[in-house]
């Protein structure tokens, strides 16, 4: 290379100060559609855990007026009438498809922040224009089958707003660049404050008191009363609306590092023994997950929840955590601790809706040096057995019914009430050899 004397830190990549927000359209429905051609052009909805509410709607379902978050039982009639296809959520599939989309985005730009399973902020390189965004959109669509919308702007708040505009206005072809918009103020004028990212109801009420109703009002507002009434958050939004970036791209995930496993019960659970069984399953899943990433947990938390929507029933939401004697990913060790915690928080006489476990303060297995006098020298042996079990379950089972389970997890046929309802679960098309999509040829 010719630049022998140039040190790495001196190499500057020309960066623009523009960001893009890429958001997958109706992500869960789109994932189902990629692997099932019979879903193309028909209304599709995906349900929350436990098949309770509608959490993703295809455009056709939106056009039929199916509301977001609606309980399934309220929509039975419209579903039957229009032949809406209904799916339980398949997070294994959605997680895999999300990873594919994110990896394509990561390869296209200098930096990305994965904001949620279906959204990412991108730092755009200099010269990356609307045309490049359209190419990127086309690539994600061709490679994964997932349609996305892209909003480009100089700040996160404006990128979010541009993305929303691209999504709502089909003429944009799902890409909108705020920085080259002909009439940016006109767009802000037709956006109400309540539609801005991060503006909840109470915030928009306080804005309204200041006479700020639209995003344009907000942009032109006097910062002094905004700060006085809304504090630093309001001031930051004001700056972001004016194109001054205050929200940095966070390439690292949030600081609370942990794995959580929890699920709502199909029907309320009262007995300790049933809670134990459900919790053991959650611990097993969470432990398997951290082992897959070569991690150990140093902290474990267990929680119980009653159904807060049942105002007529007594409510109880205990959480208790403890730091483990030594970092571990051993299912049996984690289960023992989780059981202890569960016993300490369990109170009879409540109808529990949910239990779960959180493994936190994760450290790498490689980095952890057990002390020479560590009482738990058997830990590594136990971990090895766990890993063999993981491998067998991965190869032979499907995600929902492992081949090898612990006695404490109970038997599937024991008919306990806690097993999650997932009656319309699609196959794990991309992660399980037995469930690949099939072509009749």
């Amino acid at each position: 290379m010719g630049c022998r004397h140039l040190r790495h830190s001196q190499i500057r990549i020309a960066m623009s100060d523009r960001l893009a927000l890429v958001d997958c359209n109706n992500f869960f429905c789109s994932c189902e559609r990629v692997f099932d051609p019979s879903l193309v052009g028909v209304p599709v909805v995906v349900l929350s855990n436990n098949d309770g509410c509608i959490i993703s709607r295809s455009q056709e379902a939106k056009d039929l007026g199916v509301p977001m978050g609606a309980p399934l039982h309220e929509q039975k009639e419209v579903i039957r009438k229009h032949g809406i296809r209904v799916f339980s959520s398949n997070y294994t599939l959605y997680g895999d498809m999300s990873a594919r989309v994110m990896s394509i985005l990561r390869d296209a730009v200098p930096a990305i922040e994965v904001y949620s399973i279906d959204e990412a902020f991108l730092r755009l390189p200099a010269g990356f224009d609307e045309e490049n965004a359209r190419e990127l959109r086309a690539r994600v669509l061709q490679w994964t089958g997932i349609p996305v919308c892209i909003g480009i702007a100089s700040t996160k708040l404006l990128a979010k707003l541009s993305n929303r505009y691209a999504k709502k206005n089909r003429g944009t072809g799902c890409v909108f660049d705020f920085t080259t918009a002909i009439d940016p103020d006109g767009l802000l004028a037709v956006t109400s404050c309540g539609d801005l990212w991060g503006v909840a109801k109470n915030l928009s009420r306080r804005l309204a008191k200041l006479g700020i109703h639209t995003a344009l009002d907000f942009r032109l507002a006097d910062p002094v009363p905004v700060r006085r009434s809304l504090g630093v958050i309001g001031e930051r939004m004001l700056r972001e609306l004016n194109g001054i970036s205050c929200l940095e791209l966070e390439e690292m995930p949030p600081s609370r590092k942990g794995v959580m496993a929890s699920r709502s019960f199909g029907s309320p659970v009262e007995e300790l023994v049933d809670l134990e069984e459900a919790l053991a399953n959650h611990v097993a899943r969470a432990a398997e997950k951290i082992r897959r990433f070569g991690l150990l947990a140093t902290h474990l938390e267990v929680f119980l929840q009653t159904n807060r929507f049942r105002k007529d029933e007594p409510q109880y939401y205990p959480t208790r955590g403890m730091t483990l004697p030594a970092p571990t990913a051993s299912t049996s060790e984690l289960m023992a601790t989780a059981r202890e915690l569960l016993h300490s928080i369990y109170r009879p006489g409540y109808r529990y809706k949910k239990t779960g476990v959180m493994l936190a303060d994760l450290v790498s297995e490689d980095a952890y040096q057990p002390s020479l006098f560590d009482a738990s020298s058997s830990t590594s042996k136990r971990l090895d057995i766990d890993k063999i079990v993981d491998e067998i379950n991965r190869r032979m089972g499907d995600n929902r019914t492992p081949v090898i389970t612990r006695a404490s997890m109970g038997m599937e046929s024991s008919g306990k009430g806690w097993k999650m309802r997932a009656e319309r679960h699609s196959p794990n098309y991309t992660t399980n050899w037995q469930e690949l999509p099939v072509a009749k040829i």
Partner: protein
Amino acid sequence: MELFLPEPLDPITIARIPFVTAKVDAGFPSPADDHLEGHINLHEELIRNPASSFMLRVKGESMREAGIKTGDVLLIDRSITPVDRHTVVAMIDGEFTVKRFRKKAGKVFLEAANTEFPPIQLGEDQELVVWGVVTYGIHKFA
């Protein structure tokens, strides 16, 4: 289940120690030790673009002469744009099919690799969507 990954490791902690198989106390070390290169990873060899690669199982005989038989698993790379004579997965009338993609004089149609199956000419209201291009087939012999 939510997963947050931890901070990246210090580079020193992830340094790998090379693995040596021959015992030092048993005479000569194996001459092969200098040539250890790990193992063949089929996934790496066959899948050029993981983000766009998928697998699909076939049922049926229409591609028999192309070596695709019932029960085979096909590797599909969606990042490849099909050209004449590629084997493709296509969506027709709400179903997946696997056929040979043909493009002759600007006209696109699908061809079976079995003389008992006529070529698929698309009707007025039929839309051909190529789902992906088949790159490899996996057939079980034993």
